[in-house]
């Protein structure tokens, strides 16, 4: 009993740690503005460089306790955790804003003034040079995400992440602090790339036809094989079934024969093969003019019903 409880506790811990780790892995640096002279302002109305962190998951994730840095030296694997932490800026705990909502975004101002609040870092970003930005877990050893912003990024433009991995420069009108990046930028970039590198559409045609044909080819091969397997299985089943008796059947009276024939017809109609056979036979007869010659005489057999009987009774009554 005790061992069971221990096992459950261990499993809960493992699951909890895994869930926590997965939660932090969903955090991404999504947008960086190095030189901000005309865009977003902080709580005090100041223009300053900023870094946006996004939660890519559909559940809330808390970023508090994690570290932000612009020092590429933290990548040195020989650094101990305290040495690395000393080079980074910790996101304070206890502020509800750091609990990112599903698909939420949060901007941190890189102004070197942590005394201004939770959303301010202890470092600044210097325009005109390549900027390294990294996000570390609270233990100071696990790198969650990092990015290198090119030195050529113009003022007020942002370096934005698209499709989880692609980074593009966005003009000031496409900068989106505290919200998801404008996907039209990525779309325009894709279109521009195709326009520039595949102006005649050969690459798209080769790729597209290749993908379509290979997909259908795999499907074709799979179902050819599967069809063969099914055919063999069916043959085996047929062979396993007892063969019909060759002894002459006992003579049945007319009513039984009709009942048996009717049942057989119903079974035949329920069976696809029989339907196909009937259609094929009909087509064959049509093609070879082998259909029956009809007499052209329509015979109506009266059905037994109470009405004619009464009618007859009335006629009989009046005739009397």
């Amino acid at each position, binding site marked *: 009993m005790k061992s069971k409880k221990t096992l459950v506790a261990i499993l809960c811990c493992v699951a909890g740690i895994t869930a926590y780790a997965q939660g932090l892995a969903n955090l991404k640096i999504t947008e960086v503005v190095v030189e901000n002279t005309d865009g977003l302002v902080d709580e005090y109305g100041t223009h300053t460089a900023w870094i946006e962190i996004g939660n890519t998951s559909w559940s809330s994730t808390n970023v508090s306790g994690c570290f932000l840095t612009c020092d590429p030296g933290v990548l040195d694997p020989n650094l101990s955790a305290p040495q690395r932490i000393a080079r980074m800026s910790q996101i304070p705990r206890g502020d509800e804003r750091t609990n990112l909502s599903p698909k939420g975004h949060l901007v941190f101002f890189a102004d070197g003034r942590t005394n201004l609040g939770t959303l301010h870092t202890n470092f600044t970003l210097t325009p005109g040079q390549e900027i390294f930005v990294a996000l570390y877990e609270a233990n100071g050893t696990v790198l969650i995400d990092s990015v290198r912003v090119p030195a050529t990024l113009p003022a007020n433009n942002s370096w934005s992440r698209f499709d989880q991995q692609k980074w593009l420069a966005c003009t000031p009108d496409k900068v989106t602090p505290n919200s998801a990046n404008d996907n039209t930028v990525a779309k325009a970039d894709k279109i521009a790339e195709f326009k520039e590198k595949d102006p005649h559409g050969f690459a798209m045609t080769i790729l597209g036809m290749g993908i*379509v044909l290979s997909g259908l080819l795999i499907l074709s091969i799979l179902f050819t094989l599967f069809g063969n397997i099914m055919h063999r299985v069916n043959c085996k089943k047929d062979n396993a079934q007892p063969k019909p008796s060759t002894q002459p059947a006992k003579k049945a009276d007319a009513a039984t024969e009709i009942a048996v024939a009717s049942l057989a017809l119903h079974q035949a109609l329920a069976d696809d093969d029989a339907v196909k056979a009937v259609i094929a036979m009909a087509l064959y007869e049509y093609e070879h003019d082998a259909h029956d010659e009809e007499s052209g005489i329509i015979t109506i057999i009266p059905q037994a019903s109470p009405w004619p009987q009464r009618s007859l009774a009335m006629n009989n009554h009046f005739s009397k």
Partner: protein
Amino acid sequence: MDTWSFLTTKFSDFLTFTGFACAEWGNIVMILVGAFFIYLAIKKDFEPLLLIPIGFGIILGNIPFKAVGLEIGLYEDNSVLNFFYSGVRNGWYPPLIFLGIGALTDFTALLANPKLLLVGGAAQFGIFGAYMIALLMGFEPNQAAGIAIIGGADGPTAIFLSSKLAPNLMGAIAVCAYSYMALVPLIQPPLMRLLTTKKERTIHMKPQRQVSQTERIIFPIVGLLLTAFLVPSGLPLLGMLFFGNLLKESTKTTRLAKTAGSALNDAIVMLLGLTVGCSTQASEFLTWNTIMIFILGALSFVIASSSGVLFVKFMNLFLSKDKKLNPLIGNAGVSAVPMAARISNQIGLEYDRKNFLLMHAMGPNVAGVIGSALAAGVLLGFLN
């Protein structure tokens, strides 16, 4: 006197609000186009289920009115038509149509001879061929892709892709796609005769093998897994197509399959046709781009049909004598179901009245539906 003056002022105001006062020549032309579509549908029996809603939609969308915030126009927020149009704009009508198509489609012909899937794939060259020509004509890659999908001969796919890649051209693309689908009986037969010899047209294909219920149930599941893993961007179309087919083939959800294939499908077809027709307002439709789209649409149909026929001839080079395919089924690789297959059968019977190709042609025909959804997914993945 004041009352009289008030009356005359209001009456003259009323006159300025009428369609007669607001009409422009473009509206009149488009109303005539709509009426022509209705004529084709009723008198000539060209795809009446689609052309009547589209034709009427064209008339509805081109009724001139003064835009003074009445919230009645298709593009005006909060209008009823705008609400209906959201299914086109956000792309949820086409997948629902695909659900109905799946519930109505019998893949038996394809499963009986799976190599026919390749014919459906080859016909998609119409899409990519038209894409190259559209680029040559100066369209942007996203617009070219939106136009090229007409070659798939699949209206819902064309609407789905163009609403994502080239929303401003969607009206023209949709009308063009449905118009050419209706004209398949006129476009394909001359091409089929041109590209085949009399001997090829009289090839009798081997009778189809029996397909078990197990195969028919497994096909939509495996088909979805394979195609959607390969092209996830085609998921809305492929997912609904195979879902509809599973509803049908499982034999346990006949009621759902029946609803998906009849009432639900009919409702969506009505709304889709009507709103697509409405979106062809004169100012958007009567442009040089529309003429180019119609030219490209025709070319894409020609390329698609030809590549299907030629691919069957190519396949015949590798097939033994008793397994040869009749090239007349190649045209059915475009996914105009079942019209393209009926044409294969019709032309086949013209040359040999015992050569029934209908069921053989249904294979590439339904493969074309999968192929065009895959091609749309590829284009969407690369350009969106």
